[in-house]
């Protein structure tokens, strides 16, 4: 009789927890850490196509920036290069 009862009681099974049970616990655990620690170990998920597009944009902007720097006219304190220089040879110097 008692064995029957024990067997019946032990036939009980707890319902399965939700699929995100572990993840919820882990996120609660991580939420306890100080802000700087959370920031230091923070991770983000980025889809690969979005990452590739972002890299192309950064590369393109980088190229534009570098080209723009070299194409800019040189300005040296208001002095400009002479457009049509004429040569004049000075043979002697009179002091």
């Amino acid at each position, binding site marked *: 009789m008692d064995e029957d*009862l024990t067997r019946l009681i032990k036939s009980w099974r707890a319902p399965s927890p939700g699929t995100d049970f572990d993840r919820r616990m882990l996120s*609660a655990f991580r939420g*306890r850490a100080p802000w700087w620690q959370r920031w230091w170990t923070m991770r983000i998920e980025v889809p690969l196509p979005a990452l590739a597009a972002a890299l192309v944009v950064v590369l393109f902007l980088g190229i534009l920036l570098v080209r723009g720097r070299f194409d800019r006219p040189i300005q040296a304190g208001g002095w400009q290069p002479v457009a049509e220089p004429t040569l004049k040879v000075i043979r002697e110097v009179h002091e």
Partner: protein
Amino acid sequence: VIAESDLVRRAAKGDESAFLIVWEQHRDAVYRFASWMLTDSSGAEDVTQESFLALLDHPSRFDPVAGSLRTFLLAIARNFCRNRLRKLRPEEDLDVEEASGADLLDRAVQMETSEMVQSAIAALPPLQREVVFLFEYEELPMAEIASLLATDVNTIKGRLYRARQRLRRELLWMKT
């Protein structure tokens, strides 16, 4: 082998690998206990999470000399379950049996065995319910159950006896 108290201390300081060891070792027992007490899986998940967070908040309260970490976690879970039960049914006395299980039996005629047990458990007063779980599932010795529930062995024996009488009456009657 790392001592449980070391694991708890490390986990409380933010060591994720230590926490995961503790979590994976005791998650199922705490969740099962909370499910048994609350008969509600969503509430059981919350109580399990709250119990582990409480352990991390007060790691020094765990004394390995007084009992195992599992027993300590079950004691924490028990408090959370009792709080929830009080909120759900504030008028209910935790150790007084309900008047009759007859309507329960009517509903249980077509149930599977596990569902029958679930219904019979739900009808037990919480103080009897927890004793049955700790004795039958966790197979803890009477003295450890008494320590966990902060009472004496004779009280535990009395609760267990009354719980088994009631379960016997309902479950075996349902079976026949």
